[in-house]
């Protein structure tokens, strides 16, 4: 079967050559409620950040670690979160945003409780990764890649090479790896998530 006969191919790349950023990379999201700072003086995260700062000769170098801390606390990195990090590290919010938008793992808007990333780069693709994506979309009720399911439980995206090619298809659910995923295993994997 050639790829042109393969419906999964068009589901994923709805328009041949479509290189627009996926929906999960949209910009400009604000917190819905008031923002609670992460690095309040005396807090555990503040201490953690101080420890990180001691490892580098510049404050700016703690930017990636600080953004990870915000994401771990809040689930995503909002504009308010970026502003807080900027203030703590003596950077401008625009600079911080420039960095956040470069790296794909910082969520710039809220995502589902279970953020599922399926590797579909060539080595996994030849082992049928497209079918794994299809299966996840079907069983999570996510309409399309990058969208969150109506119950807020799942977001499914395609990810570029997870670096576990010998265990095709690897997926990441939040911070956990699951290896050798087949379309048939998807319901079982989802049933184990709360």
């Amino acid at each position, binding site marked *: 079967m*050639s*790829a*042109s006969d393969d419906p999964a*191919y*068009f589901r994923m*790349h709805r328009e*041949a*050559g479509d*290189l627009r950023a996926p929906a999960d990379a949209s910009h400009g999201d604000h917190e819905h409620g008031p923002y609670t700072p992460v690095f309040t003086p005396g807090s555990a995260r503040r201490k953690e950040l101080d420890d990180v700062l001691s*490892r*580098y*000769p*510049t404050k*700016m*170098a*703690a*930017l*990636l*670690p600080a*953004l*990870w801390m915000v994401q771990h606390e809040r689930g995503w990195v909002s504009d308010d979160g970026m502003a807080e990090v900027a203030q703590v*590290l003596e950077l401008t919010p625009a600079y911080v945003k*420039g*960095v956040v938008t*470069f*790296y*794909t*793992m*910082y969520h710039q808007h809220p995502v589902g409780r279970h953020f599922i*990333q399926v590797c*579909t*780069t*060539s*080595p996994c*693709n*030849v*082992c049928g990764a497209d079918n794994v994506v299809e299966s996840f979309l079907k069983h999570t009720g996510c309409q399309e890649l990058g969208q969150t399911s109506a119950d807020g439980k799942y977001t499914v995206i395609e*990810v*570029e*090479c*997870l*670096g*576990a*090619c*010998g*265990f*095709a298809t690897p997926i*990441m659910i939040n*911070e*956990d*790896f699951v290896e050798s995923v087949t379309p048939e295993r998807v319901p079982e994997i989802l049933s184990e998530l709360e």
Partner: protein
Amino acid sequence: MGYPHTPHERETVLLSKYFGDPEARTLDGWKKRGGYAALKQALGTPPGDIVNVVKASGLRGRGGAGFPTGVKWSFMKLDDGKPHYLCCNADESEPGTFKDREIMRWTPHALVEGCAIGSYAIGAETCYIYIRGEFTEPTLRVEKALEECYAAGILGKNAMGSGKTINIYVHRGAGAYICGEETALMNSIEGRRGNPRIKPPFPAVSGVFKSPTTINNVETLAAVPHILTNGADWYKQWMRPDNPKSTGTKLFSVCGNIQKPGNYEVAMGFPFKDFLYDLCGGPLPGRKFKAIIPGGISVPIQTVEEADASFMDYEGFVAQGTMLGSGGVIVIDDAQNLVKQIARAARFFAHESCAQCTQCREGTAWTTRILERIVAGEGTPEDLDTLLDIGENMTGKTICVLSDSCATPVSSGIKKFRADFEALIKKKKVHLVPAVA
């Protein structure tokens, strides 16, 4: 493949010896296996002597470029009065490669020891291990190993009682293939966007925090303790007699359409045909190999004939029209649409381009669009020449080699498997040809 992994009798297990052995992850377990003896020995040796041993061993960078490690270390001037840095590149993101991941998962202390020796040899008090953000388990393993080492006085202000300061920290990436490029990696450590820098200045002159810096791959550093313990000549026992330029053992990650994917460690110069059929079990039942990419997706695609004639070392792969690269072997069989896979590879590069250089930003996107149009059955006969032309304009003209890496599988694919492309183009439906402005 699962762990514990029983090595094939023709493998040469040096770095992968303890893959699958959970006890080797702990400091006590690692010491029982001879760990940290090399570091102890190193700290009592002048740094210049260590550099010379590594130089003499012929160890070359295992991340892709294959630069001689000892020579790289010798660029660091010990008496310049500036702070020095060692950066360990654990951003393993080259599609097809997953060897550093296993080193960090199973033998984190091997890496920590290598980093400590490397830091001492180049006069660095600080080493950053830059681990890609997706590698959550490897990060935890390395962090645990570091914690144990600090508690045991192996690292810190008075490393192993030597009076030397050696600090090693993990710096977690956040999802960017390009940060595996050494200058982008340094920018990322500094808290910047991961845009590669123009060289010169080279990192040994002005690297991370504008200080002299050396960047080494995980596998390279993990091999250093073995070389110090056993000597340069011992390491050189593994090479082809007629090719002294590639020495030691190399981890190869094998994936794609093959019986036994996984990591294999072989001596440099191992016959690739035996590797594919004997160690990895050959093609899946009823299928045949169609194309092999032996060094991660950035290297030229090989035909089966070229692969069968290759020897697995830096020069052996070059002689057969490709490169050793990172040692990520991707096997594609005759059930696959090769053009679709090349299009997928191009999409990968288009996604990962940092967009600094025009040739790369535009070239990766154009290449992807054209290839996906061909895959969709809407290709035109001129497309292949256009792709080759774009590829030529993407090669050797940019700050880093991501652009070249995108052009390589496409151009080599068209040259070696042109019939596959033409078959798709001939099937095109004429009325669907899009208007070209």
